């Protein structure tokens, strides 16, 4: 089939009007053809708007309660899935505008799923995510700080929710601390460093972690130092990463 003939399938594909055989063939083509993927994307946006073409109708007020009831039922059946804690973190990160990479650009269902699962597997390796990460990231009062070492790697990003007394930190390109050493995160409150906890990165130089903040502590600057294993009551060296906190609310 010529490229031109393939592109003719984009509109019926977006409308779900291909036969199963045609769809399978076209999806295989989509995996390799960025032009057709882009075409399908814009036509799918058109299809998405057709929801507004349905004649307006008002559901009964009881439907809302039914929706809520069924969700509660689904929640009580058991754990949502082993992967659930990671995915919401990714979704939350995407909402906050953090780049998730172009890998999500694939458009047809299976490729998108495969790519997403691959990205997920990679994320699971590098992120020790917990539900509390999401709660912290989504707090209305969340403030953030970009920690950097004079414009070159390593770097870190920190989110702080004063109301939840938690910070979430994502560290990039930081080699694991040498044997017998550890990294320590500090909050600088009125010029005085207060330890927020110790951490280490994995072999790929990354880490995402949630740390507790002492109740009542407010701070303007955060910093990271390398310390003897177990951490120090006060920093024993100059910080190699430092960043100013921009407050949320």
């Amino acid at each position, binding site marked *: 089939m010529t490229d031109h003939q393939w592109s*003719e399938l984009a509109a019926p594909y977006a409308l779900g009007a291909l036969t199963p055989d045609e769809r399978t063939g076209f999806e295989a083509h989509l995996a390799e053809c960025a032009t057709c993927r882009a075409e399908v994307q814009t036509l799918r*946006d058109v299809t998405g708007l057709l929801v507004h073409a349905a004649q307006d109708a*008002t559901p009964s007020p009881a439907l809302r309660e039914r929706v*809520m009831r069924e969700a509660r039922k689904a929640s009580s059946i058991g754990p949502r899935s082993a992967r659930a804690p990671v995915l919401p973190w990714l979704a939350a990160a995407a909402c906050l505008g953090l780049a998730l990479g172009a890998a*999500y650009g694939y458009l047809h269902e299976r490729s998108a799923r495969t790519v997403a699962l691959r990205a997920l597997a990679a994320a699971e390796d590098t992120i020790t995510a917990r539900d509390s990460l*999401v709660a912290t990231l989504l707090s209305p009062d969340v403030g953030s700080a970009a920690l950097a070492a004079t414009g070159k790697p390593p770097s870190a990003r920190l989110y702080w929710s004063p109301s939840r007394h938690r910070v979430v930190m994502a560290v990039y390109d930081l080699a694991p601390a040498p044997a017998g050493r550890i990294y320590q995160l500090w909050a600088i409150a009125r010029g005085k460093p207060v330890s927020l906890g110790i951490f280490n990165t994995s072999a790929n130089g990354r880490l995402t972690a949630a740390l507790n903040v002492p109740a009542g502590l407010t701070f303007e600057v955060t910093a990271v130092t390398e310390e003897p294993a177990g951490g120090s009551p006060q920093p024993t060296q100059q910080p190699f990463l430092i960043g100013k906190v921009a407050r949320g609310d």
Partner: protein
Amino acid sequence: MTNWQGRPPAPDCTLVARMANADERALGELYDRHGRPVYALALAIVRERADAEEVVADAFGQAWRTAGQFDPSRGSVGAWLATITRTRALDLVRARGRRARALERVSRVDADAVATLGAAADAPDRGVEREEARGLVARSLADLPDAQRRVIELAYFGGLSQTEIAAELREPLGTVKTRMRAGMEKLRGSLAQLLSEGAA
């Protein structure tokens, strides 16, 4: 746009992230925003109110369970919900052997939606943005030649393949294909304004 509390409303995708974290209030808010258009879509496909409500309850249940898999880079939350709803509605129609119903006039170019375009502010229970979208989509569909609009409606609301549409209309398959393509091209042009807004 701000709500009565003076704070901007949470974006849809934030609601979905909260749902993935088992926040039921986020589900309620999502329903309040999208329940009505999604219900109208379900009803246009299944034609029975009780069935449409079942479809919507199932669709929001699926959205609740799979919220963690929602990928904002692939499209809006509204489009995601519409896709889930349409799939479930078509499944139900097929399961009940009611496909023939889909061949009735599946949607109506909603003259009311065009008429109320300027009066959106008088419909506080719907939302101005939705009224604007309804108006523009209705006008865009109305501007299509009947034959092009018909094949698009049969595919979208009836779940028919091009081959099935050709058989139903007793038209050559090539004619159906050409009409579908041409109609979608025109819609893409006339809906460009909504599409560039991100189709929220």
